[in-house]
């Protein structure tokens, strides 16, 4: 077998990241007790974990899975752009290191131990990609293969989780005496469910418990599972398959990755592999296999990547676009799509009453739902992982722009009746959800810039003062803040149309007003 199959790309794999010092070194108490070389933060070989993660990525891309698609595009200065065809399809030649989502996102999922759904037609490498992740986590090929749960219509809960011991079934006098032979995959840190949409609904519920709550239950016996990176595959993510996937299970999926087609220009490479009897899973280099403690440390390091406030504000602004549904409630707090959904009333009949706003401009009109806390937390974690992968210690806006569409793929449900999708240039977004969410983010950022919120954001200023704490704040200072909040609300109440970000800002101001009001009451009580 040619030796280059085992060759790991040399470090630094991203020279810009390796040579450019981060804007501000990340804080770690370990700096205080480690030796100055910081050897314990690096791998035994001396290579930092983020560098090894990049080496793993490039080994997979160059050697294991042929995925010549650089759809996660970064720029460093201007990039060349070309248009093709009648639809003026845009092709960008990225000027900075760019990545293939099909390889990168499963790898990031391994680092942050979340739940990744790989979708695409049969034979496109979904399961192979998931198996590689198991190998990178240090399991043998045999272990990984045995642990894959293949969805099929007759799969029972005990097939999935484990069987009660037959002897105990006969002799036990109470359920707790029935011992369970738990399936080995439950204890693994990489879990692979192949074709999960072929699993019967009842078994899906058992799977949901393991995915969501990290434990399995059979005959009143409970098995606690370790944190794990999940990989689920499906040939069709739009609810097809043998069984409809229950909504709660779909909601637990954190990131959706599409397996793209095979580019026929790479047939020669396939032929070379076949002739060399090369199977990537047999030749994973030792240097890119991560021990359990290394994966844990990598996760810790990812969590320490900073989301700068200007970036966080843009994410907040984007997230605030979607929940408002003005006609859904009389009290301000209940003017949400969630209220509407829980009521069971036809959304269309209510949406038609939602007048006064420009529904093409209103980003909220494009979705049927808002963003859940879980979705936002997942997005933040993956965005940090993306920055970490690039060797950065702070998130950049482009990290958000590139990653968020994959995280929100199944979380934001488009309202295809929105006039936005009737605009000819937007019609493509009815189908291409990744492109649609990226477009939403771009539009949200453009609106953020138009409002000049980086320069002047009165709510953020009020919030910053409140976050410093109320300790030592005098009565007159608190009164000044209350007056500022009331003045701002009065100003906004006159003549402004209500959009999502304004809705969230108003509720934020109300909560701050309440904090000051309670504080003032307490202050006056203590002065008596």
């Amino acid at each position, binding site marked *: 077998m040619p030796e280059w199959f085992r060759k790991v790309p040399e470090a630094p794999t991203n020279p810009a990241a390796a040579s450019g010092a981060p804007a*501000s*070194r*990340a*804080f*770690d*108490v*370990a*700096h*205080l*007790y480690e030796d100055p070389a910081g050897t314990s933060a690096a791998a035994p070989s001396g290579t930092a974990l983020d560098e090894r993660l990049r080496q793993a990525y490039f080994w997979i891309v160059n050697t294991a899975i042929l995925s010549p698609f650089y759809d996660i595009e970064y720029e460093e200065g201007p990039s060349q752009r070309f248009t093709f065809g009648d639809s003026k399809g845009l092709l960008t030649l990225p000027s900075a290191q760019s990545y293939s989502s099909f390889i990168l996102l499963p790898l990031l999922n391994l680092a942050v131990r979340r739940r990744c759904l790989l979708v695409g037609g049969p034979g496109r490498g979904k399961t192979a990609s998931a198996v590689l992740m198991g190998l990178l986590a240090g399991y043998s090929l045999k272990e990984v293969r045995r642990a894959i749960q293949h969805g099929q219509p007759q799969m029972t809960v005990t097939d999935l989780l484990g069987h009660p011991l037959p002897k105990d079934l006969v002799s036990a006098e109470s359920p707790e005496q029935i011992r369970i032979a738990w399936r080995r995959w439950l204890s693994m840190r990489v879990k692979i469910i192949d074709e999960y949409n072929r699993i019967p609904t009842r078994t899906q519920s058992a799977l949901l418990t393991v995915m969501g709550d990290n434990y399995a239950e059979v005959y009143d016996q409970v098995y606690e599972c370790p944190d794990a990176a999940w990989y689920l595959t499906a040939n069709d993510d739009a609810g097809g398959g043998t069984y409809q996937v229950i909504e709660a299970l779909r909601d637990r999926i954190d990131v959706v990755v599409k397996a793209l087609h095979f580019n026929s220009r790479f047939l020669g490479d396939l032929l070379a592999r076949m002739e060399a009897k090369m199977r990537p899973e047999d030749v994973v280099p030792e240097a890119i296999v991560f021990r359990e403690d290394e994966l844990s440390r990598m996760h*810790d390091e990812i*969590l*320490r990547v*900073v*989301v*700068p*406030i200007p970036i*966080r504000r843009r994410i907040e602004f984007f997230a605030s676009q979607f929940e408002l549904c003005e006609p859904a409630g009389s009290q301000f707090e209940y003017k949400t799509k969630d209220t509407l959904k829980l009521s069971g009333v036809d959304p269309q009949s209510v949406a038609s009453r939602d007048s006064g706003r420009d529904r093409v401009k209103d980003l909220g009109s494009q979705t049927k739902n808002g963003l859940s806390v879980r979705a936002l937390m997942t997005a933040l974690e993956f965005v940090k992982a993306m920055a970490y992968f690039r060797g950065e210690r702070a998130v950049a806006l482009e990290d958000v722009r590139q990653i968020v569409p994959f995280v929100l793929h199944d979380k934001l449900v488009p309202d295809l009746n929105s006039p936005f999708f009737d605009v000819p240039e937007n019609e493509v977004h009815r189908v291409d959800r990744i492109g649609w969410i990226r477009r939403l983010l771009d539009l949200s950022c453009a609106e953020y810039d138009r409002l000049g919120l980086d320069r002047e954001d009165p709510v953020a200023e009020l919030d*910053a003062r409140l*976050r*410093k704490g109320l300790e030592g704040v005098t009565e*007159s200072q608190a009164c000044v803040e209350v007056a500022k909040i009331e003045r701002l609300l009065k100003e906004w109440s006159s003549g402004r149309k209500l959009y999502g970000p304004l809705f969230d800002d108003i509720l934020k101001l109300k909560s701050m007003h309440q904090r000051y009001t309670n504080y003032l009451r307490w202050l006056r009580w203590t002065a008596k």
Partner: protein
Amino acid sequence: MVSPLLGKLLAANRTELNLRFERARLAEPSIEPKAFERAVAEWVDPVVIAVASVAPQDVEEVLRVTYTAALDVVSRGLASQCPAVSRVFTEVAPRAARWVASDPERLLRALIRATQSVGAFPGAGPEKWILEMSRLSAQIDDAEHWLEAGKVVAWRCGLSTARDSALATALGLEPRIAWDALSVSEGEAAVPLVEAVSRLQADPWLAPKHAAMEKLPPRELQIVRICGGFSGFGGPFRQPPTVDHDGERLLARSGDEQFEICADLFGAAVLRVTVPPAPAGPVETRWKLTSTGAVAKGDLTRVLPELRSAGAWAANRSTLAVTFPHSHRIALVAAASSP
């Protein structure tokens, strides 16, 4: 690098402590990791080492609390506003380790706030407060009494507004501790504590050691303090002030702004008054000041040449405040003993 003990504790709590930093940084992005690393090494380490020697079972909890307190100090920039705050960690808390071990949060918070309050008061000396508190920690057996004594010390370090409450606190302390807090050795005290405190309450210019004597030493009229100053040079007044009194308090006015003059033997401050003061009190007849600089209060008289150019004056029972037409400063005259 930090001590092996702190290194071990940091490693054991690494994730939690790092997350605390990140959370603090979300609220205050200007926190510099380097600066905070220095703070952990220089501030947290001494406290942890000191606590480990008296109560090793509490050291982990003390680490968490001290780390959080240091984070709070760094994020709010308290140490740059008042450098003495850092000495809470390096001097006072290690000496009071036996109390810090049992209630670290309350103790550290109280010490930091007190240092900050003394430091924020014009002319007060937080360094002296730190030294005194370190000294007293060896003399007192109980944290409550120690903190109470701290109020008396704060007054002596220049917090003139705390005078009434400090003297009331002194009365509530064991006499031995109260004398110590007043910087009078118990052997020097010739009168009971109650008597001495009563004398101090009556005369803001009387020193505690004199109040403790059987017979008060002779006093003469003298300029006891110069306060105020032009706002361009860091003082409170934009225009040369005028003075007034409301029977009890001495007041100053500069343009549209009103101030209260809080002064005694240990400190003087001119504080802006946001609520309008009470109407002027009756003219103080005990004090007299002539254009030759001759000052009289009852039987005491003295010529003070510095007061020849005096513009206006006002007085309360103990203090005469004198302004000058071309100055932003106020001279305070009182009957006081030589130091």
